[in-house]
């Protein structure tokens, strides 16, 4: 039951008009009551008039109302009646009225101020959110078109290097051949980086399709997916009971695949890899899943870098990769409103946790 208009700013005249109206009505009711012998109605009705006017029309109208109400109250209801004189025994009554009128209007003003404050804050917040979203979208489409436009020249570098190699094979010495090979390898690496960056940017732009997701099934699918990398190796898989959760199946699948694939990669140094996927915590609000391995691990002091884009903690000779897998995981989990964290120690394996809110 709140009118959206702020009479003080839209139409000050309206505010004063409201004041007159309310006081007039209050007077009418009070006189009517008096006529029918109902006592002491004047104080509440005038007070109500003051409160209403203050709430909807601000200080100016409020002051007018208080003054008007006081005068009318004095004239019609304070002995001697029909005059602005106040007889001594009615002075307390009069004073009480005035004090009460001022108190009520003060409360109403404070209330109004608080509401206005709230409204302004809310508007400012909405503006800021819109701004941030616009910037975000811009950034994502920038990332996308940059990655995109980089591919064409890269294709040319790769293509012409290869053609050069073929055409000039006989006239090139070993060193030249090595140089060309380096060019081609770098072009290939750059291609992978761009693809990864594109994929990463795509996550931010894609629509999430939320539904019920069976995490245990995703875990099994992920293990099947990395089967190729894991063929011929001794890997002990352990899958705990994983609950169902709410989210975008394709994205969560990617999370699982990235984490499992990392586990497989970094346990390559072990004769027997042990990889465990389980549920760390399952309460009413969220579910936390972990992927643990007994691989190369990492130093805890670098844990903050783990999830950064293109951040790596190992040399490319030790373990290949562009460093976008965990950044992708973090991005997807954050989009679902969850959190990621990791624990590990050098040469003692690592555990990666991600939490997803339920429902």
């Amino acid at each position: 039951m709140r009118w959206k208009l702020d009479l003080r700013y839209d139409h000050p005249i309206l505010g004063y008009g409201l004041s007159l109206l309310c006081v007039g009505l209050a007077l009418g009711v009070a006189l009517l009551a008096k006529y029918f012998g109902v006592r002491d109605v004047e104080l509440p009705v005038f007070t109500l008039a003051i409160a209403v006017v203050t709430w909807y029309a601000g200080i100016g109208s409020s002051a007018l109302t208080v003054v008007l109400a006081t005068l009318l109250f004095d004239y019609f209801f304070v002995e001697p009646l029909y005059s602005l004189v106040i007889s001594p025994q009615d002075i307390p009554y009069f004073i009480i009225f005035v004090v009460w009128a001022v108190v009520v209007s003060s409360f109403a003003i404070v209330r109004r101020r608080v509401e206005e404050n709230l409204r302004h804050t809310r508007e400012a917040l909405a503006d800021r959110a819109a701004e941030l979203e616009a910037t975000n979208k811009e950034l994502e489409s920038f990332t996308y078109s940059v990655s995109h436009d980089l591919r064409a020249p890269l294709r040319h570098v790769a293509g012409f290097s290869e053609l050069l190699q073929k055409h000039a094979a006989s006239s090139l010495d070993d060193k030249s051949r090595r140089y060309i090979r380096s060019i081609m390898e770098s072009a290939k690496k750059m291609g992978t980086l761009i693809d990864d960056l594109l994929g990463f940017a795509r996550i931010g732009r894609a629509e999430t399709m939320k539904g019920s997701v069976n995490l245990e099934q995703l875990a099994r699918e992920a293990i099947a997916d990395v089967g190729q990398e894991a063929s011929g190796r001794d890997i002990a898989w352990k899958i705990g009971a994983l609950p169902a959760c709410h989210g975008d199946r394709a994205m969560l699948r990617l999370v699982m695949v990235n984490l499992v694939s990392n586990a497989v990669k970094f346990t390559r140094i072990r004769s027997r890899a042990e990889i465990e996927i389980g549920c760390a915590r399952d309460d009413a609000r969220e579910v936390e899943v972990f992927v643990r391995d007994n691989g190369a691990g990492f130093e805890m002091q670098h844990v903050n870098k783990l999830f950064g884009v293109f951040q790596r903690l190992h040399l490319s000779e030790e373990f290949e990769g562009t460093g976008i897998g965990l950044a992708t995981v973090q991005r997807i989990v954050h989009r679902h409103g969850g959190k990621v964290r990791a624990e590990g120690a050098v040469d003692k394996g690592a555990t990666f946790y991600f939490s997803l809110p339920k429902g």
Partner: protein
Amino acid sequence: MAERLGRILMVEDDPNDVELTLTALEEYHLANEVVVARDGQQALDYLYCRGQFSDRTPENPAVMLLDLKLPKVDGLQVLQQVKSDENLKMIPVVVLTSSQEEKDMMRSYRLGVNAYVVKPVDFHEFVNAVRELGVFWAVINQPPPGSMKK
């Protein structure tokens, strides 16, 4: 392999991509019948036998390799024109582009494209893709009756 080689219309603005594609086609002896249009306008001029192409024999190419990012008239516009023209819509169109954008794919397929191929960065894959495209569309596939062939 050169018995029934259909004419290939390649619409591509980037000279490097033109060279790489032609080189790949040459490797498989498919480059003889390639006409290159450097932008959408030229492509349409060719198809409608107007402008600089007003003297050519009015027959349709066996396939059109179309890049999407073109100056003047862009790929999707060309595609739309071709697929809405009674005489031209029979021409098989293969979009050959760097764009993996879903919306580009969607719009191309909605307009009736016959194939959508994303240019691979890896040269080997690129050559393979071009060769397979060339062999399929210019040799194996029977082009619509009335199309040009050697």
